[in-house]
């Protein structure tokens, strides 16, 4: 009797609400994938098909070649990978300085990093446009790489300095006593221990650049330079929307973000949760 009660209790307080919330989460993703695999004529046909009756990949071909998702994908990849590289180099250096050195102005630098977190990003689109117009970098991936780097560095610096502080300084010193140079000890001792942290930082930076919209929209006015969000948005704003291609384009944009997220989500819960904890 008691166990039966327990089962009912668990059903009501766990499985039922969890199923409802998960369905809410999954449904739009399922519907997008479902739409992406339907031939154009079947998409608006009633009764609606909850699974594609005549599954096809023609929408993906249309999105990739005709609409230009191959280009958008490539542009997003260029911006994402470059930003990740620059951010990792800058924030590892500054994180190392914050974690291992005591120097004048350190506190001010940290307060400066802190302040940046309260700057509304939407506040920056007008001045950024003017700056990059003057530099002649509108519709140039460099403008996005620089801006995203500036936006990401404060958080990743703090993140990296935390990771570096977790690597015992004694290890580094021991390596140097054993005859390693400073650089060698960094490369052979610190770097391997730091690698998981570097990967997590890189993944979060990449997801941010992959998803950012407003700044990319403001700084790009040639279709050949669109990133995925700008491309999707333009498609969504068109007068007669090709829903199959839109769904397929969405799936194309979705896959890398979800794969990277699945890989790094453990770090996310620990890192982000730990970071926000009061």
């Amino acid at each position, binding site marked *: 009797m008691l166990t039966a009660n327990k089962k009912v209790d668990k059903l009501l307080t*766990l499985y039922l609400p969890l199923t409802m*919330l998960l369905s809410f989460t999954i449904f739009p993703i399922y519907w997008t994938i479902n739409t992406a695999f339907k031939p154009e004529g079947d998409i608006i046909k009633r009764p609606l098909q*909850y699974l594609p009756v005549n599954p096809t990949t023609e929408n993906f071909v249309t999105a990739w070649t005709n609409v230009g998702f191959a280009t958008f994908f490539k542009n997003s990849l260029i911006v994402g990978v470059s930003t990740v590289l620059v951010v990792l180099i800058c924030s590892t250096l500054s994180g190392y300085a914050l974690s291992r050195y005591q120097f004048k102005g350190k506190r001010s630098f940290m307060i400066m990093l802190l302040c940046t977190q309260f700057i509304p990003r939407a*506040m920056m689109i007008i001045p950024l446009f003017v700056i990059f117009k003057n530099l002649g970098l509108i519709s140039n991936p460099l403008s996005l790489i620089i801006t995203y780097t500036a936006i990401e560095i404060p958080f990743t610096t703090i993140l990296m300095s935390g990771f570096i502080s977790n690597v015992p300084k004694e290890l580094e010193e021991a390596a140097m006593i054993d005859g390693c140079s400073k650089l060698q000890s960094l490369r052979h001792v610190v770097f391997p221990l730091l690698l998981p942290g570097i990967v997590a930082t890189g993944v979060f930076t990449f997801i941010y650049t992959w998803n*950012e*919209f407003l700044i990319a929209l*403001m700084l790009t006015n040639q279709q050949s330079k669109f990133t995925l969000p700008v491309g999707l948005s333009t498609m969504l704003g068109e007068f007669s929307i090709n*829903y199959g291609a839109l769904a397929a384009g969405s799936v194309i944009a979705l896959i890398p973000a979800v794969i990277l997220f699945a890989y790094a989500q453990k770090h996310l819960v620990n890192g982000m949760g*730990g970071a*926000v904890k009061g």
Partner: protein
Amino acid sequence: MSLSQGVTETVINSEKTVKRKNIKKDRWVPYLFILPSFLIILGFLFYPIATVFYYSVQHYDVSAPYYNGFAGLENFKEIFTNDKMFIPSLINSLKWVVTEVGLQLVFGMILALLLNQTFKFRGLVRAVAFIPWAISGVLASTMWSLMFNEHMGVLNDLLMKLGIIDEPQAFLASTSTAFTSVIIAELWRGIPFFAITLLASLSSIPNELYEAAKVDGASRWKSFIYVTLPQLKNTIVLTTLLRVVWEFNNVDLLFNLTGGGPAHSTTTLTMYIADLAVHGSNFGYGSALTVVSFGILLVFAILYLKLSRYEKE
């Protein structure tokens, strides 16, 4: 707070490891290390923000350059006395932020409480539940537009099957449903943020507290109110503040699902600014609006932290 905590930790750590020797020799090393980050932040975060303040007191219209020049407070005067969009968009911002953050907090809390229990495949379920966090605003917009659509939208189909509506609705095109529709789509994307942060705090509450409450005969609801909530207070205060700022500034879904319409019914203050910036040319006026919205956020943040007695018992 992410940074403040990191800052204190790092300060403590580095004080522990004050250099024994070589202090003189590599005094310049840390400066060299932070130099790239410092320059990028200065040039592409602080400088743009400074120019917003500068432009806000200028006439600066790229389509009417002959008129450009110092404007004093004219832009601001225009906002508060003549702009018919300002007050309605401010009200929409208030509606947007309060409903979004409120609902995200409630559902995020429920999700976190559920995911904190032990059950099979918990790791996988957590990963799936958090997926919307990694999905962009634009992508969420395309996905939900496929759901809301009048002709092929599954939502109409489901609601008609349930007998709630008789004929397909254009949810995003009607003033009575557009705002709610965008709210739902943004809620979908926002729940994981609260679930993730609250889950991390939940798992750090010592089990003894719950056991003690149980001994005292507290019901599950009571132990939530008297044990869980007080333990989560600082996390809740901080995450809601961050989220208010974030949602106030977030226009991705509004921009892509409704474009602020129909009849400006979904135009928030930030949406109004974004629209001026992207489609308009009067950068001086847009900058003045930006400064006003920045001021509003700043006042809110200070009041909120004061009133919530953050980090005080």
